[in-house]
């Protein structure tokens, strides 16, 4: 069904379905294993070692999932800065994926760090190392989740409060709305600035490793590549979530919105590849991409996974067929996620006889924390007006009045 998405609606469907239980159990298992890890040590649950000290938790749950969770950042730029009002109905979906991506990433990080109790000292800014890129990432991410994403994700909650039969709650919702209405744009501006800083710095992290990362990936321009990749993956994630939700819950296809997001994602990807190759040529290591050794093959596979879908998405018929669109977006985001993995694993020189492959418990925990995000997503879309719906599907549960504007 083709139709323009008008407003966000609450899905009036039972929450306790089979997929919900599957995701919830996987999430529960991750927390049980996490508890086990707290009593044993990282070596017992992960495949990490002194050569490869950063593994699945940091690469998938933090680096990749926050990039996939940059949807709220990327779509907000379109909606607000470029004044594309038609993206407004998908803002809530995008912001929710961001919140869940960052939130579960931080949970995984809590299990990944060896001495989490020392986070207490994080509260004293005198302990912050101003030269540490990791500290910048930590501060920016925390600030983004607390000050920007929390505020941006408030409207669905306020709305539910507002619609409550208890008049006191409605009044409270309006009071909160009027309290934050004046400062809201300053929080949103923060939501543009902070991800720009920490998504680029995630790449900057690996720059300190210098010669330990293969020259095909190690570059002073790595912050720029990581930032652009955050836009690509953020848009890809929002697209996939919308496509899947539409398929599962029959919300219709707003081809206008989907097509524009895809077009943008494809073009940024082409720009990304151009920047990457220009950088390789500038540094004089372009020939290393075509030596067809282990690193070269990996690099070319990664580039192809990005380039082929990006070029195919240039053709309109492929952009307007939901199944193909999903497949191509999935392949493209796979390439992007692999790019975010590579500098700490594949292209990383451990300087010694070290091998790393994530252990089963590590994989289960990683999947579990991701499932936790999906579980929360299922709860959210069935309790709050999050997902966009076309005109014919707007029910009394839909987003209303003042909160719809946020």
């Amino acid at each position, binding site marked *: 069904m083709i139709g323009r998405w008008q407003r966000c609606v609450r899905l009036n469907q039972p929450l306790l379905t089979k997929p919900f239980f599957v995701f919830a159990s996987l999430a529960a298992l991750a927390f049980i294993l996490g508890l086990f890890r707290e009593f044993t040590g990282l070596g017992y649950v992960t495949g990490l070692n002194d050569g490869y000290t950063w593994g699945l938790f940091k690469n998938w749950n933090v680096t990749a999932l926050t990039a996939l969770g940059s949807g709220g950042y990327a779509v907000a730029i379109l909606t607000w800065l470029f004044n594309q009002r038609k993206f407004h109905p998908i803002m809530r979906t995008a912001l929710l994926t961001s919140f869940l991506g960052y939130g579960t990433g931080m949970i995984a990080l809590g299990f990944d760090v060896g001495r989490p109790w020392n986070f207490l000292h994080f509260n004293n800014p005198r302990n912050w190392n101003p030269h540490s890129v990791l500290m910048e990432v930590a501060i920016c991410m925390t600030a983004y989740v607390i000050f920007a994403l929390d505020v941006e994700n408030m409207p669905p909650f306020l709305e539910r409060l507002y619609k409550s039969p208890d008049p006191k709650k409605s009044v409270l919702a309006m009071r909160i709305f009027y309290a934050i209405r004046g400062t809201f744009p300053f929080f949103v501006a923060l939501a543009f600035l902070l991800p720009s800083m920490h998504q680029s710095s995630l790449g900057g992290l690996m720059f300190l490793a210098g010669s330990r990362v293969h020259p095909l990936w190690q570059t002073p321009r790595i912050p720029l590549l990581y930032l652009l990749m955050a836009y690509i993956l953020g848009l890809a994630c929002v697209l996939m979530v919308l496509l899947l939700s539409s398929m599962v819950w029959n919300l219709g296809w707003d081809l206008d919105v989907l097509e524009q997001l895809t077009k943008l994602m494809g073009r940024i990807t082409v720009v990304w590849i151009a920047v990457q190759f220009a950088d390789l040529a500038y540094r004089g290591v372009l020939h290393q991409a075509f030596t067809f050794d282990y690193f070269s093959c990996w690099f070319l596979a990664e580039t192809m996974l990005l380039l082929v879908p990006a070029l195919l998405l240039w053709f309109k018929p492929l952009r307007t067929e939901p199944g193909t669109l999903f497949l191509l977006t999935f392949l493209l985001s796979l390439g992007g996620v692999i790019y975010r993995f590579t500098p700490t694993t594949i292209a990383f020189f451990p300087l010694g006889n070290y091998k790393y492959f994530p252990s089963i418990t590590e994989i289960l925990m990683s999947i579990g924390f991701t499932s936790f995000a999906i579980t929360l997503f299922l709860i959210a879309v069935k309790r709050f007006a999050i997902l966009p719906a076309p005109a014919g599907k707007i029910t*009394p549960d839909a987003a209303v009045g003042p909160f719809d504007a946020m």
Partner: protein
Amino acid sequence: MDVDRRDILKGLIGGSAIAAVVASAIPAAVKEPDAIPAVPDAVGLLYDATVCIGCRACMPACQNANGLTPDRGGSGGLYMQPDTLNAHTKNLIKLYTAPDGHEKSFMKQQCMHCIDPACVSGCPMNALHKEPHGVVGWNPTLCIGCRYCQVACPFNIPKFEWDKVNPKIVKCELCRHIVGKTDTQPACTKVCPTHAVVYGKRTDLLAEAHRRIEANPDKYFENRVYGEFEAGGTQCLILSHVDFARLGLPALGNESPPAQVRRVSEFIYRGFLTPIVLYGGLAGVMHYRWKHHLIHSETSDHREGDPHPPQETNP
């Protein structure tokens, strides 16, 4: 539409102008020197592979001085036999043998105590820090166990206690709990029978290394000291008759990795000016957009000129 654009521009320029004024009030003295010199009283070690007899006396001495349990892995549990630096080993003597068997050299592997260390630069909480004499120390009360030091170290020195609930970062701290307190030098130099490894001020050690090179012109590899310039200079220096790369010492540029990071950061952040100006501009645009959005949302739906305006239908 034209008015619309002009207003945005006004917002953007206004916001940026305010931000620029604010930013310029912050002292611009944040620019850093690219290279950090060694502190005048920096101490370190000089290891001469041509003098080392491979007795490994320094290894148990290090274990005892630092209260480490011996790693018996390589010997099947009989005696201390680590094959790499690990959570039980801060100091290791390795033997390099060339494939043809003719060229041999011992190598002492341990923290190089860089002048501008990547681990210290990367450590978010200042757990790894420079001690008064330039020794790289680790502070257990600040370390969060993020292991960025392990990723950052160009020599792959810091090790992590993977099997502990309360894991520590294990690396040579040049016996800073002993030197100047109960002893005058670290455990490894104290026991070394041939003085293959000696402790002293970096300037003295460097002078001694060059004296040895001059006294024996073609004895040492490339007639140079490893660590004099590598990665911005290290406080532990190495002399060898074998190619350093074969001893596991990476070929590093003369600019320290942290200096390279600072250069890129400074280019992007301009002493934090970029984020402030950017935020000013963004806040300006957002303020404008938000004002119009509120008016707009009260009068119509999101899409102007939509042929099918939304209708609330009760199922």
